Every structure is written in C-alpha cells, then in structure tokens.
C-alpha cells in the first residue's frame, strides 16, 4: 500500500470514530445530564452555563417524589399493567401461534391474514369504540379493563407463529404417533421448545406496556390509578412542584427498569429487533 493511501485510510478510520462517538454523545447526553441533575438543587440544575458536579449533593428530588403518595402507586400500577400484558401475551399468543403454525383447521390462513391486516388500522380509529366498549363493561378507570385491550396482541402471535414454523415437523409427528393430541403436544413439546420466543414476547410486551401512554391516558381517569408516563405528565402539567428537578428524577425512576433490562439483554434484544425488521 502506498503511504499516502495508508494515510487517507487512517484518516478515514479516525473520522469514523469521531462521527460514531459524537453521536454516541448526542444519544447518551440527555440521560447522563438528567442523571447528574437529579442529584442537584433546581437552582444549580438550571444554571447557565450548565454544571456537571452536584454541589451540594442532594437526594431531595427523590424524597419529594416519594413524599407524594401517588408516586409509589403509579409505580405499582405500571408494574401491574405490564405484568398482566406480559402474562396474557405469553399464554394466549403462544397458544394461538402454535395453532396457526402447526395445526390444520378450516379457514386457518384466511383468519391469520385477517389478524395481520389489523396492524394497518391506526389505534386512533379503534380508540373511541373501544372506550365505549370498556365503558359499557364498567371497566373504565381500571387497570384490568385497560389491559384487556392488549392482552393478546397480533405481533406477539405473529412472532410465536414464526417460531413454531421454524421448528422441525418431525418433533410434532413423533408426539402425534405416540397418541398426543394437539393441545397435549402443545404443552409437552411446543412450549418447552419455545422458551426463546416466549422470552422475546415477554420483553417486547414489557417494554411496550411499561412505556404505554395513549391507552392509560384515555382509559384511566383518577390520579391514583395512573401509570408512570400518565402520572408524570399529569404532575408536570399540574405543576406539582415549583422546581423541575423532581420531574427529572421521576423520569429517571420511570425509565430505569427499561434501561436496565435493555442493557442486560442488549445482545438478544438488538438481534430480535433485526429479525423482526427482516420480516417486513
């Protein structure tokens, strides 16, 4: 390689690291900045130019949050909602995904296409009718009523179906010869083999439910039933605190589970996203 070519190559690599690191800073700095500021007084956090070391170091913002009786309730509600959604989707979409992938019944493919077609309908179209349905069921302002709407999502059913399709047919044939009925072979053979897909459904549904906003905003009415995103935006709009730092601290508390989960599982999650994207 000629020396000039080598030089441009080194320059290119340097540019690569510079661009990638600059954007890593852009994507990460809001998180770092708010983490640091959550230990500051509002007076210091709003200083210009910005300061980076909390002085005095204070936990007052977090204390203010938990002094508000609603805040722990919001955490509990969000966890309950996410839990219901995760369990519902694991149970129901794995059952349906298995049936759509492995069993024969009249109208199977038409029905599955019909379910997939639902993904084209914006949530705003079904929002008002669903509000009326849930209202008629007497489940407005109730986490269970809200969870009912996304207890068995089409995307998780799709994911489970794809996974069951990827398993070799022989496994199921063997069970069939041994006299296992379809439901029995689902519980004894399908489910134990589907652990990776079940994990993926659980994580995606958890992230979706934990971060959900529109549904909780519409279907929950009283502040003690709010989830974290609705509760925090409510606290912000009602100006519950004169300072902004408790909102920042609250945002971090609300984001912490998803961030920790993502960092712990980043390899699997990123791979899963890519697999999903490839299907599109």
């Amino acid at each position: 390689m000629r020396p000039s070519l080598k030089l441009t190559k080194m320059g290119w690599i340097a540019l690569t690291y510079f661009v990638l690191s600059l954007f890593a800073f852009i994507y990460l700095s809001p998180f770092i900045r708010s983490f640091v500021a959550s230990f500051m007084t509002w007076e210091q956090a709003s200083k210009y130019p910005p300061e980076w070391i909390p002085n005095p170091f204070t936990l007052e913002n977090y204390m203010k949050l938990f002094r508000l009786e609603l805040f722990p309730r919001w955490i509990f509600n969000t966890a309950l909602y996410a839990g219901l959604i995760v369990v519902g989707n694991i149970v129901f979409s794995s059952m349906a995904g298995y049936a759509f992938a492995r069993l024969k019944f009249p109208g199977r493919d038409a029905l599955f296409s019909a379910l997939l077609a639902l993904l084209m309908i914006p949530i705003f179209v079904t929002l008002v009718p669903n509000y009326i349905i849930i209202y008629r069921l007497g489940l407005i302002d109730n986490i269970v009523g809200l969870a009912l709407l996304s207890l068995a999502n089409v995307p998780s059913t799709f994911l489970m179906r794809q996974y069951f399709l990827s398993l070799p047919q022989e496994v199921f044939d063997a069970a069939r010869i041994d006299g296992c009925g379809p439901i029995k072979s689902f519980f004894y053979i399908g489910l134990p083999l589907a652990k990776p897909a079940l994990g993926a459904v659980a994580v995606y549904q958890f992230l979706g439910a934990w971060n959900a906003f529109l549904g909780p905003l519409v279907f929950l009415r009283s502040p003690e039933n709010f989830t974290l995103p609705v509760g925090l935006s409510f606290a912000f709009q009602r100006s519950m605190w004169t300072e902004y730092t408790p909102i920042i601290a609250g945002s971090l508390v609300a984001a912490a589970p998803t961030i920790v989960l993502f960092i712990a599982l980043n390899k699997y999650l990123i791979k899963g996203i890519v697999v999903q994207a490839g299907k599109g």
Partner: protein
Amino acid sequence: MSKSHLFLSQKIKSLLEKRKSREALEALVLISVVTCLNMVFGYFAAAFAFYLSFFKWDYIGSMEFVGLKNFMVIFEDLWRGINGAYFFQAPFYTGLKNILLYTAIVVPTQTVLAMILAAFANQKIKGVQFYKVSYFLPAVTSPVIIALIFIWLFMKQGFINYMLQFVAPGFAPDWINDKNYLLYAIALVAIWGTSGHFMVSFLAAMQSIPRDIYEAAMLEGAGPIRRFIYITVPMLKPMIVYVVVLGLIGALQMFDLAWVMAGSRGGPGGAGYTMALDIYNEAFINLRPGVAAAKSIFLFVLIFSITYVFQKKYKVMAR
C-alpha cells in the same frame, strides 16, 4: 376378503376424519382468546368507528343519523384553514399542516441519518456493540419520559442552547415557548428517539451484503463514499422501504411527544397541534365521538394512501 378390506379402509377413514375434526376443535380452543379479543377490539371497533362517523352523539343520549355531516365538519375546517383562518377556527387544518411538515422533516432525516451512522459502523472497528447500545437506548425509553427530559434541555438557558452556541453562536431560541420553533423542537426529539433504532436495522442489513462486491469496487478504485452511494444504498432498498414506511406510520399519528411538549391544546398558536391530538380532543374533550370517528377515518385514509403510494412507487423503481 374384499368386504373386510373395505370395512377396514372405512374404519381408518372415519378414524382419520375423527382425528381431523378433533384437531380442528382443539385448534379453535387454542386460538379462541386471540381471535375473540382482536375481533372485538379490532374489527368490531373499526366497523363501529365507521358506523359512528355517520351519527351525531354525545355518549349519553340517542344517536342521530346525520349522513356525511361529520365529514363536512372536516372539510369546512380545512377550507377555512386554506383561506387563512386562525388555529382556533381551523384546528384540524392546523393539525394536518403541522403533521405533514413534521413528517417531511422527521422521516427523511432519521432515515438518512440512520443509514449514514450504520455505514460508518459497518467497518472493521472496535466497540460497535457500545455504539449500538447507546444509539438504541432512546428507543426503549418512553416518549413521555423523553419529552419531559427534553422540555428541560430545551429551556432558553438550557443544555441544548448551551451546546448550540459552539455550533451556531447567537442562536438561542426559546424552543418550547416560541411558536416558530416548537414543531422543530418536537421533530428533533423524534429524530433523536428513533434514528438509533433504525441505524441498528440498517447495520444488520448492511452486514448481509456480500463482501466481495465491496472488494471488487475497491479494486476498481472506488472510495468509501462512492461505495456507499453505488453499492450500499441500492442493496439496502428493501430495508429503506421498510424503515420509511414504519417512519411514516409513526410520524403521521404522532401523539405522545406533542401531548407533553406542546400540551393537548397544541401550545403557543397551536404550533405543536397534530391530527392525533385533534381526534383525542374531539372524542374526550368536545365529546363529539361522531366527528372524532370521521377524523380518525380521514387519518387512516391519509396514512394508507401515503404509504401505499410510496410502496407502489418503490416497486416500480425496483423493476
């Protein structure tokens, strides 16, 4: 002999039939919950929305058939807006105008940015996983949380204006409270929030492009930029279509960011008002579910036609 043979084959046939019907029955049990819930909250709800769009109602009294009047409300609003009416007289027009501008900014920017970042990361370098994780982090965080943090970062004396003075000295708008900048602030947050997610998708697609194509191009003397334009971009077309379509669907019904950053009434002069906010307000503040349903159908048709035209056009280009 032949009689017993016939008998046996009939017996097998009926056994198989029995097994088949049992399989169908058990399958129905397995799919029952998913099917029922999605039929009710998906298809029935969509059909009901369509039905509702022809009625005047306030959730309590009796429903009154009004024909296309709810759709007329939309077109009168749009007509007033085109003739220069203010936000309060033409909220739907403002929402539509804002969301189209927002989409025109967000979708191309996030797609191109994601592609460029992925191209940079698609080299023999160290720490790619670190970059992927940091770019992806905004995508796993709730938009509401992101918006709350950015309201603070966007303050007049805030972190973003501080960083901006190194790039563009003297440029320090009051992003959230200035009607000329609010929509751009929301668009910046959206780009920040989704581009990293798409970067990861692009990177995976790039890694599946055969290496020898690049090597051949390198032998021909093509530099990294020309390789990107003449090899990477054409090979990525399916992924680009996927990312743009997803981006369009997300951007056209943007709600969370606007709700927090602009408020449900759209902020100063309705600068952050969107169609989704307008549908919400019609349904749950103005209590006009019929008008809300008509507007939601308008939104559906808008999203459907834009994504349809885009996909159609792409397919024509590919052939």
